[in-house]
């Protein structure tokens, strides 16, 4: 009840938030005046006391004391209740060890922290202390859960629809009689449909398995719940089916359960497809650079994985350079990683690979050596430990399609990113002069040279392009997995599989192969387990190559073997 104004906080506890009806309004005014007349002197102070006492208890080292303290603060209806609870939940409330005062951290200076006393808005009490002088007010998971519940009941009347939705979802299935009361009153004044529905479900969940409900109430509850995909709704129905004696209601509830399960099944399929596509797009990203260096140029580039790794490390370094703007750093990383990996790629090409054209197998040997060197170089420069790359705000979170199907945002971005990279690369090879030259050299080096193509330059550019794309893949992978010296090795084998399965030298093949292997893997995973699914995919590739010895999209014509 954080409506601003004098009376809201006071009226609230005695008379749970009321509606807009005239009678209620009248009653409320009555209550408030009563309070003002008599109770305020005593209970008001008592509440202020309980707030103060609660704060005092927060200083304890014992979780049970802290929990009592939080209960006291939550029920105190003090103006600062929400503030304190939020600070606690976010772990931002500290205790100054020396004076035992509650403080919050305001900022950093050098390696020290600037702290001010709790509720000191003026900043008079600001002082600078070292990290070890203050101690966080400890909370654990059960405290965290009760904090969330307490905050949720405060947020029920928030002006923000999303906050109200969250609050109701948070309380779903955990309704105390008081909260039930509050919610049903809220339902009368709630204007937003989605919140209304949520509240109805929340109330029905309680109604259904409550001993107080009569069969009419239960029947409505069953009907309400049968339409909801909330997990709590399904659980309530399942519990009801097991316990009820009423045959008619039971069959209705079972029917509802079946329809929910049917919907959940479809949601499950959609989810699997999404997982498969997102795994597939990771594979495509990792492999597509190889499709250029290996597929177009015929270089068996064992250092491809390490070029991906360099891209991931570039992301890390860029983030170090701009720690205050994670979102921007990711966007900057994309071109930066491209340039770094492309540069290293061109170095490799100019320094080693160009001496080995016509001896492609030897490129395997040399690039294997290079991959060892790059790995060790990263280990020496950045230490063998994994580096932490933060996920920007805009990439975290989910898009909730319905309560049983939500798509994670970062995966969506990566699928989109993969498609963009593919499209750009495809157009580059198709429509630019460089692309035409690359293809010409790949098809017939001698002829291309005769036509005036600077094949050496094209080789360097092609290898740089493939390597740069590997670096870009590294940016994407830094959002999903470890940024460490072993990052490259984890993807090199899969990348080769994808390129070969798709057909060497064919970009479309790489795209289709990557996505379909990803989806196949995810379809098999639920029943075969992650390990067996992977083995089956490998066996499938082996058998598939028997049927089509040149991959999904074989190259045609004279260049096919080249």
């Amino acid at each position: 009840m954080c409506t601003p104004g004098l009376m809201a906080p006071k009226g609230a506890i005695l008379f749970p938030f009321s509606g807009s009806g005239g009678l209620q309004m009248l009653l409320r005014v009555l209550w408030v005046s009563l309070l003002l007349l008599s109770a305020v002197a005593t209970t008001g102070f008592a509440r202020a006391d309980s707030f103060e006492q609660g704060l005092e208890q927060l200083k304890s080292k014992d979780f049970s004391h802290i929990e009592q303290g939080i209960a006291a603060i939550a029920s105190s209806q003090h103006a600062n209740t929400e503030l304190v609870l939020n600070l606690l939940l976010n772990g931002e409330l500290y205790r100054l060890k020396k004076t035992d005062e509650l403080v919050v951290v305001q900022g950093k200076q050098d390696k020290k922290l600037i702290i001010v006393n709790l509720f000191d808005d003026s900043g008079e009490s600001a002082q600078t202390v070292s990290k070890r002088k203050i101690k966080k007010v400890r909370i654990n998971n059960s405290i965290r859960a009760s904090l969330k519940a307490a905050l949720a009941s405060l947020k029920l009347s928030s002006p923000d629809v999303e906050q109200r939705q969250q609050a109701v979802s948070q309380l779903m299935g955990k309704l105390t009689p008081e909260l039930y009361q509050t919610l049903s009153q809220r339902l009368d004044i709630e204007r937003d449909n989605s919140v209304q529905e949520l509240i109805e479900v929340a109330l029905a969940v309680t109604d259904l398995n409550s001993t107080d409900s009569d069969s009419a109430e239960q029947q409505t509850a069953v009907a309400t719940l049968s339409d909801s995909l909330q997990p709590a709704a399904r659980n309530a129905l399942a519990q009801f089916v097991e316990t009820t004696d009423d045959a008619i209601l039971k069959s209705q509830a079972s029917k509802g359960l079946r329809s929910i399960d049917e919907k959940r099944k479809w949601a499950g399929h959609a989810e699997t497809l999404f997982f498969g596509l997102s795994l597939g797009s990771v594979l495509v990203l990792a492999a597509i650079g190889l499709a250029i260096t290996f597929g177009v140029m015929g270089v068996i580039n064992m250092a491809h994985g390490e070029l991906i790794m360099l891209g991931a490390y570039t992301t890390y370094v860029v983030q170090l350079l701009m720690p205050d703007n994670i979102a921007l750093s990711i966007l900057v990383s994309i071109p930066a990683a491209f340039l770094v990996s492309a540069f290293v790629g061109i170095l490799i090409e100019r320094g080693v690979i160009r001496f080995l054209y016509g001896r492609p197998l030897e490129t395997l040997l040399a690039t294997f050596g290079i991959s060892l060197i790059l790995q060790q170089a990263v280990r020496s420069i950045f230490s063998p430990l994994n580096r932490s790359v933060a996920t920007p705000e805009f990439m975290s979170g989910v898009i909730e399609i319905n309560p049983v199907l939500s798509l994670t945002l970062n995966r969506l971005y990566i699928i989109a990113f993969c498609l963009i990279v593919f499209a750009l690369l495809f157009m580059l090879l198709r429509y630019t002069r460089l692309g035409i030259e690359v293809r010409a050299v790949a098809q017939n080096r001698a002829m291309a040279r005769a036509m005036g193509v600077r094949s050496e330059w094209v080789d360097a550019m092609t290898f740089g392009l493939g390597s740069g794309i590997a670096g870009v893949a590294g940016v994407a992978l830094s959002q999903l997995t470890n940024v460490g010296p072993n990052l490259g090795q984890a993807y090199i084998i899969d990348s080769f599989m994808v390129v070969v399965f798709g057909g060497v030298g064919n970009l479309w093949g790489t795209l289709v192969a990557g996505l379909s292997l990803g989806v196949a893997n995810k379809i098999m995973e639920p029943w075969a387990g992650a390990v067996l699914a992977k083995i089956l995919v490998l066996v499938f590739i082996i058998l598939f190559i028997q049927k089509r010895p040149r991959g999904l999209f074989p190259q045609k014509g004279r260049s096919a073997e080249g």
Partner: protein
Amino acid sequence: MTTHPQMYEGIFNKSTIRFLAVLIVVALAVPLLNALDSSNPLHVTTYTMTLMGKYLCYALLAVAVDLVWGYLGILSLGHAAFFALGGYAMGMYLMRQIGDRGVYGDPLLPDFMVFLNWQELPWFWHGFDQFWFAALMIVLVPGLLAFVFGWLAFRSRVTGVYLSIITQALTYALLLAFFRNEMGFGGNNGLTDFKDILGFDLQSDATRMALYVASAVALGLGYIACRMIVTSRLGRVAVAIRDAEARTRFIGYKVENVKLFIFVVSAVLAGVAGALYVPQVGIINPSEFSPLNSIELVVWVALGGRATLYGAVVGAVAVNYAKTYLTAAMPEIWLFSLGAMFVLVTLFLPKGVMGILQRERPDNDDSDGNNLDNGNDLDNSGVKA
């Protein structure tokens, strides 16, 4: 195989005789020096002897790879799989030899099965208490896998990188499979804590000596077998396939059969190498299947020099010695040296280390041939049919 009378000179040509002479000296000298009193300055420690025994196994494996890569043009990136399978067959025999001396004292089940609550021995573990059966499996399992795999792949005319990558897929799949604890091969820990072989204590110097000599003999015999193959008519056909597969086929040779035969022989040699390797290092586990191991194998051969057989031996010994030395001498940065070695050898010694020494060898003048993608248009049209 048919060997032409005149070919005998070919089998035991100069380099082979030299190689065998060195091998015999090494095979005899090391155990003799090991038997010397430890205060003697010429004494070779058991550590060194087992280490060299390990190198000899690697050398045999490298010879097997060279046989298919150097002479047949098949770049197998999965040969470590055959090595590991041979090793597992031996490991299973050694596990059964432990009997009731495991920590749980179970007369039948290996320790790892006891603590994972296996009730009975899986069917594929039966028979491995007999050495002859294990020995048969050491040859049969890698051989059979190579046969089935090769039969499928060669008949479908899978060649070049496609073949390389599916051999890699094969060993990768086996790696994942052997990691699974449900498979009954000890999962990630693999098989270890062996006690004795054929009744001899594995930790005694005499047994180690015997294993060392056995490895040397196996390498010698394997080498001679490979020489016999490459100098025979079959070997000539193999080289022809390497250089122009379609042409060889059109002349009327059964290309698939030649490939299959040599591939299987190579797999068996790799299996034997693995079987000798396991009792000397004392552990076999799935990481031996790792695709990177297979790539490293190819690197040994390339480093020593392809299509010479002895080049493979030199490559295997040199790289592994370098590893042993560097991991102790410069543990923090040894990968730089190893990586640089690979790069430099490729750039400056295109025929491998042995390339410097082999001006006299006639049959590998084309060893830097681009077999992986030899421009072979006819072959390609055959595929599409």
